[in-house]
């Protein structure tokens, strides 16, 4: 039997002695050889790819440059933006309505909203778009009158809606089903004590939703909504099946004519990247707006970060001693 206290187990390190000089021990960091090797391999691959981008003649950068700001393309980007904007605004308006219908106490409203979401999430967007494109085959005339009774005013469905209208309707209805669930998720994430407190104060119902619940729900809604809007921006490319002159359709038209497939696809890609980046930036600032009150000190904006970094480096350069690292959080970390 060995005693637990007076005998160190075999292989245990010797007790720590005072360092030779009183300044302390020198710390030797671990060498991550595998990590360095992996980083080197990846950098080589990236270099190869970049080199290929620059030198492979198939990319035809001069064609890319010639078309990137051409009138046709800029016009097509504008159509893409319009489709995205309309479908986002209308989709989220309808989606918010559906979300509150699902959250309402009326079983009829709940069921209708649930059914809508069920159906429109089940239909592929492209199928739905083609349906709307062929609306006139389904309903030749649209009119206003008494349900199941006489019609007072009617119009040709094609002339009322048109191709762009059909695309906006299709995108909106599709988007609304997803937006409804996103908004509902956000509302459910708000503590029930909030609407209870608002009710106890006698704040009118609509005002409770607009002023108390929705602003807090936005914190949970925005990240997912950002995903959806970016998805929608790229999703508008599906509309090419309706021969609408948005970005992807126009690019196809041009390379159908001149055969420069790769550089024109690159033009579309670059524009989608630019637009998505702008949306991401906008999302950051909107999220920051709705985060007020949530953090004791609001996080700095990207601009403030850059300024702080530059100032920090300048200060470090001016100082004679060893440079002090600037405490900077990574971009994505908002806390």
């Amino acid at each position: 039997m060995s005693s637990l206290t007076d005998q160190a187990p075999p292989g245990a390190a010797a007790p720590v002695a005072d360092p030779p000089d009183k300044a302390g021990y020198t710390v030797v960091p671990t060498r991550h050889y595998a990590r360095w090797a992996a980083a080197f391999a990846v950098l080589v691959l990236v270099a190869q790819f970049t080199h290929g981008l620059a030198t492979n003649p198939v990319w035809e950068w001069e064609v890319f440059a010639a078309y990137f700001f051409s009138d046709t393309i800029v016009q097509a980007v504008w159509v893409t933006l319009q489709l995205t904007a309309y479908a986002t605004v209308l989709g989220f308006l309808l989606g918010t309505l559906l979300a509150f219908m699902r959250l309402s106490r009326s079983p009829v409203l709940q069921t209708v909203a649930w059914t809508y979401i069920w159906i429109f999430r089940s239909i592929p967007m492209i199928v739905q778009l083609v349906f709307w494109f062929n609306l006139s085959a389904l309903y030749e005339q649209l009119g206003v009158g008494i349900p199941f009774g006489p019609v007072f005013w009617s119009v040709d469905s094609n002339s009322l809606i048109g191709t762009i209208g059909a695309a906006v309707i299709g995108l909106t209805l599709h988007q609304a089903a997803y937006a409804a669930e996103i908004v509902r998720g956000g509302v459910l994430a708000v503590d029930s004590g909030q609407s209870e407190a608002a009710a106890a104060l006698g704040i009118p119902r609509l005002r409770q939703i607009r002023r108390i619940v929705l602003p807090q729900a936005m914190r949970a809604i925005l990240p997912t909504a950002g995903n959806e809007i970016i998805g929608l921006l790229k999703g508008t490319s599906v509309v090419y099946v309706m021969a609408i002159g948005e970005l992807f359709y126009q690019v196809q038209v041009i390379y159908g004519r001149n055969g420069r497939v790769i550089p024109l696809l690159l033009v579309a890609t670059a524009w989608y990247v630019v637009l998505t980046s702008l949306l991401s930036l906008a999302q950051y600032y909107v999220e920051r707006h709705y985060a007020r009150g949530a953090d004791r000190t609001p996080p700095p904006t990207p601009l403030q970060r850059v300024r702080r970094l530059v100032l920090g480096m300048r200060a470090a350069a001016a100082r004679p001693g060893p440079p002090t690292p600037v405490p900077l959080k990574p971009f994505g970390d908002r806390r």
Partner: protein
Amino acid sequence: MSEVMVDVHGVHKSFGPLHVLRGVDLRVRAGEVTVILGPSGSGKSTLLRTINHLEKVNRGWISIDGELIGYRRAGDKLYELKEKEVLKQRTHIGFVFQNFNLFPHLTVLENLVEAPVSALRRPRREAEDTARRLLDRVGLADKAGAYPRQLSGGQQQRVAIARALAVSPKVLLFDEPTSALDPELVGEVLDVIKDLARSGTTMVVVTHEIGFAREVADTVVFMDDGLIVEQGPPAAVLDAPQHERTRAFLSKVL
């Protein structure tokens, strides 16, 4: 004797099979402080929540200053009021929650201004002046621009009390106002409530603070198992309880 401000009459409340209130009668006179004590699950909070109609009663009725809450009486029938009318009635009743329930995305001042402006349609300037006066009264005049999360628990609850006062209610209801606070913060909140009591505000307070009940209450009500077991002046109920269940409860908490 002053008039009856809160009149609870034969109130029953069930949550499914759970019979939480089993015939409660309670009268609170204007300017008086009533403290409700009792073990958890005895129905104290539910009773408080029925008073401002956050919970509908299954039987009985409640009136504030002679006005029936949640219903309109015509002959021997009670007609349920629309939500809009109930919301209007609630502006006569201030409610302070255990978890404060301040609106975290609004500043302290906006928290106080919201209900007077949107529910009572008071001009914003006037509401802001009142709000600043109330903040001064609870000792937080310098926190008007702060967000609730920048305040301590005790400060948040004082803001919540000021917010409840902002609609100038006829009666204030407190649902365990100090239970979510660190012990050293309880005092500052109780001081504010005591100050209100001295100024003649009608209050019903559900609490576990026996010392507070002894000092401030005009009437102490002891509840157990959905019924009022005993009520009277603090000296009678706390020092010479008549009922066995009151004695058992007090021996545990004192």
